[in-house]
């Protein structure tokens, strides 16, 4: 009887001594993992929000750029069927570019002449 009791008590203590720390470790591990996972998902959410905002800003910038370009081009807007308007546009552009140095104008002239020759030979 006494022997059985001693065995039971020893077994219980042994199990307690081995299982309890393992259980504590396991539960602790699960809690830490849960905290880490929550943190990760929060970070992911924030990153997604920031990415969305970034793409919206990019889109807005592109739209602004397009609008700006259209506005600029508005000055050189051509009315295909009205030569006078096209002529006016050309005069305006020539005026706008008149700030260029003679050297730069010479360069453009050379490039255009070079390309005219090329185009002429294409048509031949």
């Amino acid at each position, binding site marked *: 009887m006494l022997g059985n009791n001693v065995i039971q008590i020893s077994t219980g203590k042994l199990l307690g001594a081995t299982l309890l720390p393992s259980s504590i470790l396991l539960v602790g591990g699960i809690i830490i993992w849960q905290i880490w996972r929550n943190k990760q998902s929060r970070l992911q959410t924030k990153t997604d929000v920031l990415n969305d905002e970034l793409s919206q800003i990019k889109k807005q910038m592109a739209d602004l750029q397009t609008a700006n*370009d259209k506005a600029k081009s508005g000055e050189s807007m051509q009315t295909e069927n009205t030569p006078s308007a096209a002529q006016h546009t*050309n005069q305006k552009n020539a005026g706008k570019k008149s700030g260029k140095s003679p050297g730069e104008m010479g360069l*453009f002239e050379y*490039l255009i002449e070079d390309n*005219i020759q090329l185009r002429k*030979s294409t048509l031949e």
Partner: protein
Amino acid sequence: MSTSTIYHIGIDLGTSQSSIVTSTGKRLSTKTCVGHPKDVISQKRLNKSHLLGEEALKNRLSLNLVWPLADGVVRDDAVAHEATQLVLKDLIQQTLPSLEKEDKVYATIGVPALASVQDKKTIISITKDFIDKILIVSEPFAVAYGMDRFDECLIVDIGAGTTDLCRMSGSIPGEDDQRSLTEAGNFLDQTITDAIHQQYPDVQLTPQIIKVIKEKHGYVSDNNDPAIVSLTKKGQPGSYDITEILHKSCLTLSDAIGQAVQSLVADFDPDFQEILRHNIIVAGGGSRLMGIEKAIEKSLDSYGGGKASCIQDVEFCGANGCLKMCQEMPENYWDKI
């Protein structure tokens, strides 16, 4: 009354990579290749008449790939012409999505320094349906223009098909101021492939594998980390030391460039040679090769030394210069074309 908007674009049409920059601030770079489905199965799987750029490369096993440019210019056959059209149209559509029928596109396209009249005519001919006005310019000159470098400097543009050199001296560069070499990216790829096969005969290589190796390990400096790469031999993977192979192969490219730089320096006005030697700008994809600027400087040691630097925006520097030229060209000049 119908109104139209004029869009300006700068294009760097390259053998391996093409880039576009538009007046709307958009820019895009893509591989200059087109893939057509090989058979009905690939046609059904891809559900497209053709794929372009990286998408085509990813699906290359199902496609007949076309690289329409060779040595920096459009190959002279109908397939290449059509492929170039597709690439250019796609670049324009992607960067100018709001382009309408009545709008106009004015473009400047960079070509190799000494491209023939026929090569330039080909570009004009294949773009006439979707580009209203086109200006063809020397690619290295476009790079210089983009950087506002008209003073004494030497542009070395290392592309895939050609390496173009342009000597700037405050005036419009003539033919004597320019060199176009076929020793460029593709040449280097072939040299590396041959050298690896010579040392490891049964190793399996593809152009893509070589490109990855070159971009990761390619160098021309005296010292570099060992280049140990993983390759397959009859399907079995293994590690191969190609440090020496890469070094020797890359030197064949840098030596050729060095000689061209030397010749451009040598026949320049002696009073300005020193300035020229100290203002060498290396552009193009090949400028990513580790130590290339040092190798060029080294080639000038016997000439009194030099200073070379690599450009930052490698992918778009040519297209940026083209766009700048395109936008600054007065409207009345455009009307002459």
